[in-house]
């Protein structure tokens, strides 16, 4: 490779790296693309909810330190929050199907976020029973997100 | 490297250039960044000195990088390029072994500067690891 070629390759590499690192969101021009993004968001949301649920279940068995529980829940909440934020920032195409999908997923994400916040609060206050009780809301949410993910795949 | 009837044979680029130089106590001195050739009285060319440092290595990078390295290094130092005379070379093996001591050679101004101005000021720099 020539010197110039190598320099160009390096610039290209760094550019591509930045692109992948920032993981840009942007617009979804077609309903199909929007469905694809909704699908990915639903799956990521499921991952965070299931993580929280697994942590609560493990903690209820007496298998988890308080510190690990707290960290896991707050990370799950953070991840969930960024999924929600990313999905909200996508400009949906102007179709009724997209609008319907958006409101459905948006609703689930809002409920999920508040459930995760409740779990984190209960965990920090050491209210084990309340936490386990709140966690009962997670499974139905996951099921609905799963149904949405199936429908958009 | 082979021995012939009239002396050892070695390929300069492959067996000498870029090889580690160690002093008589096994301490690392430098790399053979380049060597100076001298024309003998008989007209033949002989290896005279090891050249050290960015001003020796820079030109070997070739191209623009070589020019840059050399230009920057020349701006930073106007002293003559550090050298080691081949008279103190004891052996050429997987390293170039000298018969002299690192302390007498004074060929690494950057090492001296970093030692005197930075490393020596950090507590514990004079002690061996525990």
């Amino acid at each position, binding site marked *: 490779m020539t010197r110039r070629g190598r320099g160009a390759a390096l610039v290209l*590499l760094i550019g*591509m790296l930045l692109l*992948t*690192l920032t*993981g840009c969101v942007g617009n979804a021009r077609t309903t199909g693309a929007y469905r694809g993004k909704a699908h*990915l968001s639903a*799956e990521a949301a*499921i*991952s965070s909810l299931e*993580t929280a*649920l*697994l*942590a609560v*279940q*493990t903690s209820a*068995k*007496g*298998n*988890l*330190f*308080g*510190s*690990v529980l*707290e*960290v*896991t829940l707050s990370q799950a909440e953070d*991840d969930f929050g960024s999924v929600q934020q990313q999905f909200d920032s996508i400009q949906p195409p102007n179709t009724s199907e997209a609008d319907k999908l958006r409101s459905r997923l948006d609703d689930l994400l809002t409920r999920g976020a508040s459930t995760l916040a409740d779990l984190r609060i209960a965990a920090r206050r050491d209210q084990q029973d309340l936490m386990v009780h709140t966690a009962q809301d997670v499974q139905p949410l*996951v099921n609905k997100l*799963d149904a949405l993910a199936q429908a958009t795949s | *490297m082979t021995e012939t009837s009239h002396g050892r044979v070695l390929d300069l680029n492959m067996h000498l*250039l*870029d*090889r*580690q130089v160690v002093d008589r106590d096994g301490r*690392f*001195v*430098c*790399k053979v*960044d380049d060597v100076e050739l001298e024309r003998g009285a008989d007209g033949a060319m002989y290896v005279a000195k090891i050249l050290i440092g960015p001003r020796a290595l820079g030109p070997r*990078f*070739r191209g623009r*990088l070589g020019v840059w390295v050399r230009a920057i290094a020349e701006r930073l130092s106007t002293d003559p390029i550090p050298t080691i005379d081949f008279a103190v070379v004891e052996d050429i093996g*997987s*390293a170039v072994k000298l018969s002299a001591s690192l302390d007498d050679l004074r060929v*690494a101004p*950057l*090492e001296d500067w*970093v*030692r005197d101005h*930075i*490393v*020596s000021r*950090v507590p*514990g*720099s*004079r*002690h*061996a*690891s*525990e």
Partner: protein
Amino acid sequence: MKLLQVALGILTAIGGFVDIGDLVTNALVGARFGMSLAWATLVGMVGICLYAEMSGRVAAVTRRGTFDLVRERLGPRAGLANLIASYLVTALTFAAEIGGVALALELATSVNYLLWVPLVAFFAWLLIWRVNFSILENGAGLLGLALLAFGFALWRLHPDFGHLAHQIIAPHKPGSERLTTYWYYAIALFGAAMTPYEVFFFSSGGVEEGWSRKDLMVARLNVYVGFPLGATISLFIAACATLVLKPRGIEVDTLSQVALPVAFAAGKVALAFLILGFVAATFGAALETGLSCGYAAAQYFGWQWGKFVRPRQASRFHLAVLLTLIAATGLVLTTIDPVKITEYSVVFSAIALPLTYFPILVISNDPDYMGEQKNGRALNFLATVFLVIIVVASVAAIPLMIWTRAGQ
């Protein structure tokens, strides 16, 4: 006494094998692909054994460090390009390890990892500055054995081992994943198992300790027994994730998710061991990567390097390590997720691998240097097969990274 020494070496090799890259990548892949990519870890394991054995032998016979020889065989220009690339990858891994230690401490204390980062960095520097190398290596390696908690958890999960084994032997890509993503993660696992810094570090240690041919037998034993057993821990991590995380649809992007299966299956004591193992493995690897950055630069330029001389006598080496430490710590403090740094660092390791593997392969065949100790025919055949694999993985990695948007 001799036996004890050999056993200690092997145990250290096992505990020292796993670092943040193995922890994250194996759990991540297990949760997404089950055991269908375990073959990549196994291929990487064979590769690192070959590579480490050759470079250990080269170090013992020539008493020269890897980059010393790289410059000699590739010339100053290609050698410099090689140094820069390998240095950057190792420094990136260094940052990932520092972040990993901080994340593990966050799990133990629930204090935000960013507050731990400066402390971890300072402590790492202090140990590099003051503490003898074998203590560092053995301590981190032995404590790293606590990661066997993954094995205990796996046993407690009562899996159908036959089924897991079948998934490994007859890999089948999950239908929901694209083929490009599958191959991208195959390269990531390969890079995680075959990180170049392990080899710089291993052979530089050999040069410093003045290995002779007799020590070579012990080193070989460490490699051929310790590394495969260490790689088994990687498989345990993947299996735990396969059994606990995958059915729940959990995608791994935090260290706590790596730990959850163990707590879930084996309880608090196992979890405590695991966190200890996290800290030891990542901290040990942080020291190794930090030193490796210094080794690489010092060996290329011919500076005095190493832990056997006083810091005063290896000023430029210690300065290089310190500057790298500052840069790596700075990178982690930008709040880029250390787990993300790790995911990239393993792929970049795979990309940079041929740069050092190739010269080592050539030198281990050099009759001037190696004499009777040069590679045999069978080894050369296997090493050439791996050269092809390594080059293909390296060349394919960047297009796959772009195509799959880094495995999304």
